[in-house]
C-alpha cells in the first residue's frame, strides 16, 4: 500500500493505493486550513488509515505548501546576505534583499582567485549583522561554483565570531551558473529552512506515533521527484510548487503513455497547464520563479490561469457577459448562488453534473438579463473559455519552441511541439477538456482517477537527483552544482569522455546513497555532455568537460506504468 497526500491551497487530497492490484483503495478530500497545515495533512492520513495494517504501508509521500506559504507571506525571519561579487554588473543590481553586504574578493570563471578577501572588512560586516539582530547569514560569491574557497572562508569567520548564527553558502545551496539566481535561492533557502525543518520533523513524529515507525517518508519536490524527508530538511525551497508537480506526475501515471501531451489541471479557481514531452515533464528553463525572481530550483514549468470551473459568469450592462477571475463559491449545480463556467458546460453538453436543472435555471435568469438566447449565452461563454485556453497553449508551445539554442544541431533540428493528447485532471476537467481537445484536433484523455491525480502522482513518484559537473583537466579538479560536491582528478592521466562519464557515475552513486536513493542511481542518465579542448598557442593544454546527469522524474519500481 502506498499513500500520497497533496496539500493544496484550497483542498488537501489523499489517496491510498494498492500497488499489488494497481488500484486506488481509498481517496479523501478535506478543505485545507492554511494556518494549520499539519492538521489538514493528518486529518487526511487519519481518514486513509482505518482498516489498514500498519505493516502493509510501504511508503508515504507528502506534497505540502508550507514553504510556498512562508515565501508568499514573508513571515519567516529574513537572513542577511554577504555577497562576494568582484567585477561585473553594478553592485546595486545585486542588492535585491534588505541586509545585503558586499565584500571584497573575486574568483573568475575557471575558479582562480583574482582578488583576495579582506578579513577585517568581513569581521566588520558580521558585527553589523549581529547588531541588527539577525541570526541567519547566506554567503554568496560569483563563481563560487567553480571555487568555493571564499565562501568557505567567510563561513569559517562567521562561525568563529558569531557561533549562534545559522550560515549557508551559495556553492552548496545553489551551484548552477547564475550568481543572481544563486543569491535569490540562497536567501530563500536560509529564510525558510528552520521553519520547514521543525514542520517536517513534527509531521514525521506525528506519523511515527500512528504506528508507522518504519514506513519510508518522502517529500515531493517541484521537479516531480521525491526525496526522503530527513534529507529534504536541508532543501526547503525544493518543496515549493509541488502541487503542480503532483498533478503532472499524476497525469503521467494515469495515461501510461510516453507521448507529447498537455496536462490541464482545471480546478475551481484556476487552471494549471504543464507539458509532457515524450512523457517527461518540461522544466521551467529559468528555474522556479519566486516573488518575481528567478531561482536555481528545478521546477516543472507550469502556467496558471485565473479560470476554473467555479469562475463566475457575470453580466454588467457596460461589459456584457464575462467570466470573472475570482471564485465566489461552487457552481449552481453544486448548490452555489452564481452560475459558473461548470454550469455553462453542464447545460450546453447535457453533462448531468450535480443538479443540472439548477444550472439551466440560473443561466436562464442570466440570459434574460443579458438579452441573449440561451444558446447564444452558452456559445459566448464557451468561446471565451476556449479562447483563453487556446491562447495560453499557443504561448506555452511558442515559448518552448523559442528557447535559446547553443548548438548548431539544435537550430537545424528546430523544435516543434506536436500535441498528441490533452490530459484533463482536476474537478472541472471533464466539462471543458473534451471540447478543447476537439478544437485542437487531438484526443482528450480523462480518467476516472483524474480528480485525485495529484495525490496519486505524489504516491507514485520516484526520487530524482540531478547535477551538472564541470571538469577542468588543466586545473586537475571538478565541481558539481549539487551541495558543493567537488574534488581533485586522479593525476597523470589524460581524460577522455568515457573517463568523465565514469567519474560522474561514481559521484551520482555516492550522492544517491547518501540520500537514501541508492537503488535508483543506475537509472541516472546523461542529459548533457560537452567537451572543449583548451588550446593555447596552438597546443592543447587541457580539456573542459561539462556533463549533466539526472535521475529523471518517473515512478517507483512498485508501480508498473500503464497499469491503471
Amino acid at each position, binding site marked *: 500500500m502506498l499513500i500520497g497526500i497533496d496539500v493544496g491551497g484550497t483542498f488537501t487530497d489523499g489517496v491510498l493505493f494498492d500497488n499489488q492490484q494497481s488500484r486506488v483503495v481509498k481517496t479523501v478530500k478535506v478543505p485545507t486550513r492554511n494556518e494549520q497545515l499539519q492538521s489538514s495533512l493528518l486529518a487526511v492520513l487519519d481518514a486513509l488509515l482505518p482498516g489498514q495494517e500498519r505493516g502493509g504501508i510501504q511508503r508515504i509521500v507528502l506534497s505540502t505548501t508550507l514553504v510556498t506559504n512562508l515565501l508568499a507571506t514573508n513571515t519567516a525571519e529574513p537572513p542577511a546576505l554577504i555577497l562576494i561579487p568582484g567585477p561585473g554588473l553594478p*553592485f546595486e543590481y545585486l542588492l535585491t534583499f534588505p541586509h545585503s553586504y558586499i565584500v571584497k574578493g573575486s574568483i573568475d570563471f575557471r575558479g582562480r582567485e583574482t582578488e583576495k578577501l579582506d578579513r577585517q572588512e568581513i569581521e566588520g560586516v558580521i558585527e553589523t549583522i549581529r547588531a541588527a539582530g539577525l541570526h541567519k547569514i547566506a554567503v554568496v560569491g560569483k563563481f563560487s561554483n567553480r571555487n568555493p574557497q571564499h565562501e568557505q572562508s567567510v563561513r569559517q569567520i562567521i562561525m568563529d565570531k558569531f557561533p549562534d548564527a545559522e550560515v549557508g553558502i551559495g556553492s552548496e545551496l545553489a551551484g548552477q551558473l547564475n550568481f543572481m539566481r544563486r543569491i535569490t535561492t540562497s536567501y530563500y533557502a536560509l529564510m525558510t529552512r528552520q521553519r520547514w525543518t521543525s514542520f517536517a520533523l513534527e509531521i514525521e513524529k506525528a506519523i511515527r506515533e500512528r504506528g508507522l515507525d518504519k514506513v519510508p517518508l518522502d517529500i515531493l519536490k517541484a521537479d516531480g521527484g521525491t526525496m526522503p524527508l530527513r534529507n529534504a530538511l536541508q532543501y526547503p525551497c525544493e518543496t515549493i510548487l509541488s502541487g503542480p508537480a503532483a498533478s503532472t506526475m499524476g497525469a503521467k501515471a494515469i495515461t501510461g503513455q510516453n507521448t507529447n501531451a498537455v496536462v490541464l489541471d482545471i480546478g475551481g479557481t484556476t487552471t494549471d497547464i504543464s507539458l509532457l514531452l515524450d512523457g517527461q515533464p518540461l522544466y521551467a528553463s529559468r528555474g522556479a520563479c519566486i516573488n518575481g525572481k528567478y531561482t536555481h530550483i528545478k521546477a516543472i514549468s507550469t502556467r496558471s490561469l485565473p479560470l476554473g470551473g467555479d469562475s463566475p459568469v457575470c453580466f454588467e450592462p457596460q461589459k456584457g457577459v464575462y467570466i470573472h477571475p475570482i471564485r465566489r463559491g461552487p457552481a449552481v449545480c453544486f448548490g452555489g448562488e452564481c452560475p459558473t463556467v461548470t454550469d455553462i458546460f453542464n447545460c450546453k453538453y447535457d453533462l448531468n453534473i450535480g443538479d443540472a436543472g439548477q444550472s439551466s435555471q440560473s443561466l436562464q435568469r442570466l440570459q434574460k438579463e443579458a438579452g441573449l438566447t440561451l444558446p447564444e449565452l452558452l456559445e459566448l461563454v464557451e468561446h471565451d473559455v476556449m479562447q483563453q485556453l487556446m491562447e495560453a497553449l499557443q504561448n506555452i508551445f511558442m515559448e518552448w519552441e523559442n528557447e535559446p*539554442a547553443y548548438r548548431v544541431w539544435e537550430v537545424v533540428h528546430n523544435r516543434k511541439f506536436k500535441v498528441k493528447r490533452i490530459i484533463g485532471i482536476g474537478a472541472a476537467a471533464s466539462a471543458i477538456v473534451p471540447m478543447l481537445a476537439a478544437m485542437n484536433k487531438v484526443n482528450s484523455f480523462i480518467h476516472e482517477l483524474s480528480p485525485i491525480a495529484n495525490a496519486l502522482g505524489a504516491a507514485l513518484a520516484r526520487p530524482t537527483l540531478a547535477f551538472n559537473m564541470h571538469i577542468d583537466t588543466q586545473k586537475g579538479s571538478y565541481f558539481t552544482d549539487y551541495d558543493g560536491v567537488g574534488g581533485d582528478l586522479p593525476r597523470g592521466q589524460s581524460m577522455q569522455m568515457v573517463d568523465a562519464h565514469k567519474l560522474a557515475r561514481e559521484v551520482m552513486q555516492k550522492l544517491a546513497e547518501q540520500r537514501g536513493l541508492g537503488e535508483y542511481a543506475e537509472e541516472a542518465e546523461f542529459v548533457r555532455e560537452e567537451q572543449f*579542448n583548451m588550446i593555447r598557442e596552438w597546443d592543447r593544454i587541457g580539456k573542459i568537460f561539462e556533463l549533466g546527469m539526472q535521475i529523471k522524474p518517473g515512478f517507483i519500481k512498485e508501480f508498473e506504468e500503464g497499469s491503471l
Partner: protein
Amino acid sequence: MKNTGVIFFPAFDWAISPTHPEREERLLYTRDQIFEEGIMDLPNIHEFKPRLADKKDIARVHFCVPNVEAQITDAHLVSAGSALVIADAVLRGEVDNGFSIARPPGHHAMTVAHGNRGFCNINNEAIMIEYIRKQYGLRKIAVVDTDVHHGDGSQEIFYDDPDILFISFHQDGRTLYPGTGFVYELGGPMAWGSTINIPLPPQTTDEGILRVLDKLVLPVLEEFAPELIVNSAGQDNHYTDPLANMRFTARGYAELNRRLAPDIAVLEGGYSVETALPYVNMALLMAMAGIDYANLHEPDYRPEAFKESAKNLEYIEQIISHQLFNFRSRQQKIEENRKKYGHEYGEHQQIYYDTEGISEDQARRLRICPACPGWRRIDSSARHRDGKTYHVFCISIPTFACPECQKEAFNAYQDMAMYNHHYDYIYLQDRAKDRYIALNVANGREEVYE
C-alpha cells in the same frame, strides 16, 4: 536603460579544426561570464533564438562558387541567421538595439566566395544589411568595423555603394593580416569617400581609439546621417589578443559602444578566449543596454597602463584630419571621377584566401550610371582546394538600380548565358527584383532563388 536583444550562439559543436582559433572553446568562458552574471535575467535584456539564414539571403550578397552549399556549413547559416533575427527584432521595434554574439565570423568574406578567408566564408553583416534593405526598405546604413583586422570583405562588398558608409579602424595593414585598409582605399569611383580606413599603429590604447571615434567616426556619421548603424564588433584590439598587438581594454570597448550607440552589433574576431572575450562581450552588452560598466574590468586591469604616447596621438591626429578632408570632398571627387571614367570603370585584382591557400584572379567592371549606383560584372577564376579550377562570370544589380541598368544587366546575363561557354558558371544577382540565378554552363541547368 535600453531594451537590448541578444543572441548568444557559441556553436559548441563547430570548429574550423580542433586547434584552430575558431573552435568550440572560443565562447566558452564568455558563456560562463554572461550566464554567471545573470545579465540575461534582467528585464531589459531579451534573449532570442537563432535561426537558419535562407540560401537566398546569402545569394543576395555572395557569388558562392560553384554554389551556396559548397561554401557553407549549417554553422554559417546559423551565424548569419542570428544577425537576421537581431535585425528583425530591432527593425520591428521589439528592442532598442541588439547584439549577435555568434560564430563563425564574416567580415573577411568578399562578394565572390571561393573559400574561407580569415576564418570567414560568408559575410554576416553584409547579408544582414541587404536583408534589411529588402525587408524594411532602408537605404543608408553605416558599418563601423571595430575588429583589429581590416574588414576587407565588408569593404569590398560595399565598395561601389554610395549609400553604405564603411568605416574600419584596425591595426596597420603593414603589420597585420589582411595587409589592406590603408587611408587611400576610399571606395569605388562612384562611391568615393564612403569607405574610410583608419590604420592605427600597434600598441594603440583606449585613448587613441576613442580619439579616433570622437574626432573622426562620430562627426562623419553625423554628416552621413545613416538610418542604421552597425558595429562589426571584433574584440581583438584587446591587449591580450594572441593574433594582434593593440592595447584596448574591455572598458574601452564599453566606452566605444556607449558613444557609438550602434543599433546592431555583430560579433567578429577576437581570439583571446579567456582573458578578453568574457569581459569584452559583457562590456559591450552592458554598454548597449545602458548599464553602468564602472565595475567591469579584467582582473589585471590597471588604468595607468593604457595611456597613449604623445607620438602616437600626433600620428592619429594626422590621420583624422586627412580622412575628414577626404570624406568631406567626396561629392566633388565623384564628379571628377564621372568625367574621368565616362560610362565604365574597370580594374583587376588578385585575392588571396589565407585559410585555404586559394588565389583568385578578378577583373571587375562597373557601369557608371548617372541615375543609380550602376551594375557590376566580375570575371573570376580560382583553383579550389580540391584541385578544380573554376572560371565564373558574375553580374550584380544593386537594390536601387535604375530601370535601364536593370535591363542592361539582365540582357548581359542572357547574352552571356547564350553565347559564352568559356565559363563554368554564370551568375545573375538581381537585388532589385530579389532574384538570384546560377547557371551551370556544362549542363545548362539554372538554379534560381526567388
